[in-house]
């Protein structure tokens, strides 16, 4: 177990290092830096712009800056934000919390809906309810996330039932503790729903096919032949075996969830890392971009690590290999 864990952690660290080098290099390849637009301001002199660049070390070559940044990371310093005149880490912390709240809720919903749906359509394979489900999931799969999110925004605007953005209402400060929780839940509903719908169809289809495969296995027939109830066969015998590919799927779904959440956050003004990242990319606030990319990579790596550990726990074959 320890050996397995160390090997996985070493992989993760290497991956993160590679991501950081590539992101940093790519950010430097694009011409112009954060302070370039100031050059077009008639009221700001070139000397001042150069002074600002020097203050943030932008006059040094990028490998030097990368080394400096990397050294900082080991001391918990993710570099400065040029725009915010402040370290990147605290900027990310609050927003990452909001993003986790959103993606966590959406992930929970998506799985809670997908597992029963997937099982039901596997059991009723070929029947009309399975086919209808197939049509709906393929339709949802073909709709681009952007269109889906805009449609949901349109629903909010037209109906007036839901807030059109933000995480709390303007009167949040005057609410009681319970009222505040309700207010956040009210604002959370639409973005989380959008995100859950976006990831749901792929999950349902994977669960369905995994279950179908297992249900055809000889041991299931044997179980049925022993007169064990269908309900028990499904949940006690089939599901744990089908769990294997689903756990790997969980690791991947963290990645899709994170990239979709960036879009949802921007469209529905959810104060997560999405709007921060978008603004930082447009403004070339490089350390903010880098910090956000690294944070997303860490989430991704952690998601996969958790999935691997779960697999390790449930699948004896993996235990044998290591």
């Amino acid at each position, binding site marked *: 177990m320890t050996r397995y864990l160390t090997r996985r952690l070493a992989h993760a660290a290497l991956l993160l290092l590679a991501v950081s080098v590539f992101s940093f290099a790519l950010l430097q390849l694009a*011409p112009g830096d954060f302070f*370039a637009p*100031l050059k077009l301001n008639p009221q700001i002199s070139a000397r001042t712009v150069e002074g600002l660049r020097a203050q943030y070390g932008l006059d040094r070559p990028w490998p030097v800056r990368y080394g400096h940044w990397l050294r900082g990371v080991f001391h918990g310093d993710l570099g400065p934000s040029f725009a915010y005149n402040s370290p990147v880490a605290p900027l990310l912390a609050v927003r990452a919390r909001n993003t986790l709240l959103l993606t966590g809720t959406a992930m929970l919903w998506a799985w809670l809906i997908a597992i029963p749906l997937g099982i039901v359509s596997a059991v009723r394979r070929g029947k009309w309810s399975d086919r209808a489900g197939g049509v709906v999931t393929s339709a949802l799969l073909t709709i681009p996330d952007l269109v889906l999110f805009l449609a949901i925004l349109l629903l909010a605007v037209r109906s007036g039932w839901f807030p059109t953005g933000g995480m709390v209402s303007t009167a949040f400060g005057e609410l009681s503790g319970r009222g505040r929780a309700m207010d956040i839940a009210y604002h959370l509903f639409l973005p989380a729903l959008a995100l859950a719908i976006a990831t749901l169809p792929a999950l349902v289809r994977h669960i369905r096919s995994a279950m179908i495969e297992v249900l055809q296995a000889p041991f299931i027939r044997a179980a049925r032949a022993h007169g064990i109830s269908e309900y028990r066969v499904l949940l006690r015998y089939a599901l744990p075996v089908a769990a294997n590919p689903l756990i790997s799927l969980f690791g991947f779904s963290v990645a899709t969830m994170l990239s979709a959440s960036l879009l949802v956050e921007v469209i529905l003004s959810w104060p997560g890392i999405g709007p921060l990242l978008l603004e930082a990319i447009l403004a070339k606030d490089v350390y903010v971009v880098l910090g956000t990319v690294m944070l997303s990579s860490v989430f991704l790596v952690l998601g996969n690590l958790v999935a691997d550990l779960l697999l390790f726990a449930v699948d004896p074959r993996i235990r044998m290999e290591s």
Partner: protein
Amino acid sequence: MGRTHIWAKCAALGLAVACLGAPTKARAGQASDDRMVLEGVPGHAGGRLVVALRSEPKTLNPVLAVDEPSREVIRCLSADLIHINRASLKTEPALAKSWNVSRDGRQYTLQLRRGLRFSDGAPFDADDVVFSFQVYLDEKIDSTQRDLLVVGGKPITVVKVDQYTVRFEMAQPYAAAGRLFDGVAILPRHLLEASYKGGGFSEAWNLSMAANQFAGLGPFRLKEYVPGQQVTLERNPYYWKADRAGNPLPYLGEVMFLFVPSEDAQVIRFQAGDTDALSRFSSENFAVLQKQQGTKGYHLDDLGPGLEYNFLFFNLNDLGAKNLPEIAKKQSWFQDLRFRQAVSAAIDRDGIVRLVYGGRATAIWDQVTPGNKLWVDDKIAHPKRSVERARELLQSAGYSWKNGALVDPRGKAVEFSILTSASNAQRTKIATIIQDDLSQLGITVQVVPLDFHAMVDRLQSSYNYEAAVMGLVSGDADPTSEMNVWLSNGETHLWHPNQAKPATPWESEMDGLMEKQLVTLDYAKRKQLYDRVQEIVAEELPVICLVSPNILVGAANRVGNFRPAILVPYALWNIDQLYVQ
């Protein structure tokens, strides 16, 4: 001997009236005789105004702020010595209740209001002013405001005369000196001196500070900042203005800035009634909002052209040292005045107004828009679009047509590309219309939308471009804010920046005119000088001015005293007078 500013006299008169009217309403700790009294409808006290910001403020430090959202918030939190009234576009007293200018125009002596307090209750006096300017002018801080305070190559100097008098001295007379003070927020020495001396100033007053570390002289003070969501300001009980009934200003109990990352989302939030005021939005959104203007509780205003001018310009840089032979060859066209005149004549400015801005813009032929009533030159001709005239001009310059395509005197087909910023949809559309207009002259134009940073790099560093469509927004209605654009050694003399000596006779003339207007104190004489600059721009076409978008604003009907203006901040400049019903 000096001359007192007329605005100071008016204010003094107003103050006297206020004292007679309601002496009992003066707040404790504030000398009522030095309060400034504002005209306008007395409003209701209390309530909250909610507005959206395109992105978060990055800092609340007035010395370091460079982006508009930060400045928008800082303007509500701070005050300057002399202020530009956004309605009249003229200077008026602010923290300085009056000022004298020495005969030679180099010395400004400012009388500060007495008994004022910062929003934390600490008293304000000349030491705070001297400290503030020391920080702004510190070379190590690299404040972008510093450049405005450098006159004739030397930073202005500040001397404390007594507790409520300060004297500013400039290296040369400076016509718009009063306007320099606008937006230079006075800092509380008692809160910032330690971090300034201790070297931590670059992170002072960033958004992670506690609200009680912050204080200013503005109508509001910081209440709470929620990262990614909003910043809330509360009424400053020590504010130094009152209405004509003697009620202390501001009326509003709170101002809340929500962070809404896109224009469309802002429009939606405004439409839904979540926010109370809206500015900086496109004519398309204006049209959308207009449809529901009657049924929902808001109204919209089209203020006419602002101070932004959009233009096309060609690369006239000296490319000798750069390895850009293709562009250098094309410069023989760009440098030919008749070529530029032909391009200008062939562009359908009214078409741009109609197609890009849905009619909510104004065609222009020089850099001063009709919105800038103090400085616009009415004598500038506004020729209609004429492809025939363009053809005549090109013919007279030796150009001809081969199979409908324009060829230059050496037989080379005329073809060039126009850079625009991909993030600005309007300017990309303008470039596309120019492409179409010029195709009627047989000129092939490619439109190249680029990332803004990449575009700046090409315009300002590598000079690797042929033509570009850009816009500038004058920081102020006064021509001094445009010095760097029109001086040939200016860094934003876009078509050919940083010239060692003027490349053309007309640039040399323009240099002389701009330098002279800077030191001339008489408005009428300055106007004559700047009129001539506008004439040169219209005649020589270093930039082909095209269009100035109208300033569009909206406000909820419940907002009282709403008087939007064409100078930033368009909607909230009189936030100390706004109230909600």
